[in-house]
C-alpha cells in the first residue's frame, strides 16, 4: 500500500494530466455525437427517400466498422488525400462520429415511441412539422431516450481510450508511458482503471440520472 502511495506521489500528476485530456475528449466527442445522432435520427424518419438513404448509409458505415479502424483511417489515411486533421481533433471526431451512429438509432427509436396521438393532436392544432417536432415530439422523445444515452456516454468515455493509439496524451497514453518507464503494470493500469471507473460512476451516471429526473419534472411526469 505504501509502495502504491509512493507511486502515486511520483506519477500522480501525469495521470491527472491524462485524465484532463480524456475529459476534454469525452465532452467534445459527446457533443458531436449528440448533434450527429439528432440530425441522423431525424433524417432516418424523413419522408424523402434520398435523405433517409443518406442517413442509413452513414449509420451502417459507422456502426459496421470498428472504431479503431476508423481512428487509424482518419489519422493515417486521410492525409494522403489531403485532409490532415490535428491528432486531438481526429480523436474526438472519430469517437463522436462512431457513437453518433449508435445514438442515431436510439434517437429514432425514441421519436417513434412517442404515442401517435401526439402527432395527430399537433396536426389537428395546425402546427407546422418543425413546431410539431421541436415543441411536442422531441421533448417527449428525450425522456424516452435518456436511459440508453447514459449507456452510450459511458461507452464513449471508454472509447476515448483508443485515441492513445494516435498519440493523444490522454489517460491511457500516460498510463502506457509510465508503464514503459517503471514496468509497474499493476499500479499503472490499476490507477487508470480506477480513474475511468470514477469518471463513469461519479460523473456520468449521476449526471444522467439527475437530467432524467429534471426532464421528467419538466414534462410533468415526475
Amino acid at each position: 500500500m505504501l509502495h502504491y502511495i509512493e507511486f502515486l506521489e511520483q506519477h500522480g500528476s501525469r495521470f491527472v494530466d491524462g485524465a484532463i485530456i480524456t475529459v476534454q475528449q469525452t465532452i467534445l466527442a459527446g457533443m458531436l455525437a449528440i448533434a450527429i445522432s439528432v440530425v441522423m435520427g431525424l433524417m432516418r424518419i424523413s419522408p424523402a427517400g434520398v435523405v433517409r438513404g443518406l442517413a442509413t448509409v452513414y449509420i451502417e458505415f459507422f456502426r459496421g466498422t470498428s472504431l479503431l479502424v476508423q481512428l487509424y483511417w482518419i489519422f493515417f489515411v486521410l492525409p494522403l488525400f489531403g485532409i490532415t486533421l490535428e491528432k486531438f481533433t481526429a480523436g474526438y471526431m472519430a469517437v463522436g462520429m462512431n457513437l453518433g451512429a449508435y445514438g442515431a438509432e436510439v434517437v429514432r427509436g425514441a421519436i417513434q415511441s412517442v404515442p401517435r396521438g401526439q402527432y395527430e393532436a399537433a396536426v389537428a392544432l395546425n402546427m407546422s412539422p418543425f413546431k410539431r417536432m421541436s415543441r411536442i415530439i422531441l421533448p417527449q422523445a428525450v425522456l424516452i431516450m435518456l436511459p440508453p444515452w447514459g449507456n452510450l456516454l459511458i461507452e464513449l468515455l471508454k472509447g476515448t481510450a483508443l485515441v492513445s493509439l494516435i498519440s493523444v496524451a490522454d489517460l491511457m497514453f500516460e498510463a502506457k508511458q509510465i508503464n514503459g518507464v517503471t514496468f509497474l503494470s499493476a499500479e499503472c493500469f490499476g490507477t487508470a482503471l480506477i480513474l475511468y471507473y470514477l469518471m463513469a460512476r461519479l460523473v456520468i451516471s449521476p449526471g444522467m440520472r439527475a437530467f432524467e429526473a429534471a426532464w421528467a419534472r419538466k414534462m410533468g411526469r415526475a
Partner: protein
Amino acid sequence: MKSLFRKLAGAVIAVSFAAVVVSSSTASAETLLEKTQAGKSVRIGFANEQPWAYPGESNKPLGFVNSIVLGTLKTMGIENVEPVVTDWGGLIPGLKANRYDIITGGMYILKSRCENVDFSDPIGVFGDVFVVAKGNPKGLQTYVDIKKSGAMLVTGAGYNIVEVAKKQGIPDANVMQVPGPTEMLAALLAGRADAVGTNFFGGKVLADQSGGKAELSDPDNLPDWTKNWVGIGFRKSDTEFLKAYNEAQAKYLGTDGMLAAVAEYGYTKAQLPGDGTTAFACANR
C-alpha cells in the same frame, strides 16, 4: 419564412463544412527544408524504446538516437524541435501521413523499410539478442534452436526480428508480435513466450528490469547478417534536407561531444558505423 429558414440553414451547413475541410487540409506540401528555413519546428517521431529513443517528463526526447539527432540538428542551427511519441508499428505510416518530419525511433535500415522511407547515413551498427528466462532452461541461443525446439518467440510489431525469424524458418504461429518492450517482457515473465527477440541494447534494459528473472543469450551466437545499421528516417520527398542532414551528421558523429552525450545510454565507440553505407544496408538487409 419557412423556406428562407431552410435555405439559410443549408447555406450555413455547407459553408461550415467547406471551412472545416479547407482549414484542415494541408497547404501544398512544403518540404522539410522550406519548413526549417521558415523557422517552423521540426517534429521528431519516436516510440518507447529504451535506451534508443523514449520520452521523459512531458515527452522530452531521451535516448541516444534522439541525442545524436538533436546534436546534429543543433550544428545545423535548428533548435526548434517538437517530439511526437507514437507506437513503433505506427512510425513509418505516421511519417508518410506527415504527422512528424523525422523518425528517430532508432530504425534498422532494412530493404522493406527503404522502399517506404529514405534513411540517413548510418548512426551505428548493432546486433540482436534473445532475452530468456533465468538459466535459459530451453537452451535457446540461435534461431535454429528456437525452430528445433518449437519454442515461442515474442517480438515487437514491425521489428526486423519478424522478417529474420521467417527467413530462418520459424513458423508464423511461433512468432508472437506485441506492441513494444513492456509487453514483450510481460509475455516472457508470464510464460506466454520462451524468448524475446530484440536488439542488444533494448534486451539489456529488459533483463535489468526483470528483477533477476530474465537474462540475455550470447549475442555473438546470432548470424552475422543480423547485424544491422541504424539510420534516421525521412520522407522520400525531403531529399534536400536529407543531404544537408547527412553532411552535418558526418561532422558530428564520433566527436568527443557526441560520445559524451550518448555515454549515459550505453553507446560507445564500438557502435560507430565505420564503413557501412545506407545503400549497402538497403540492398542486403
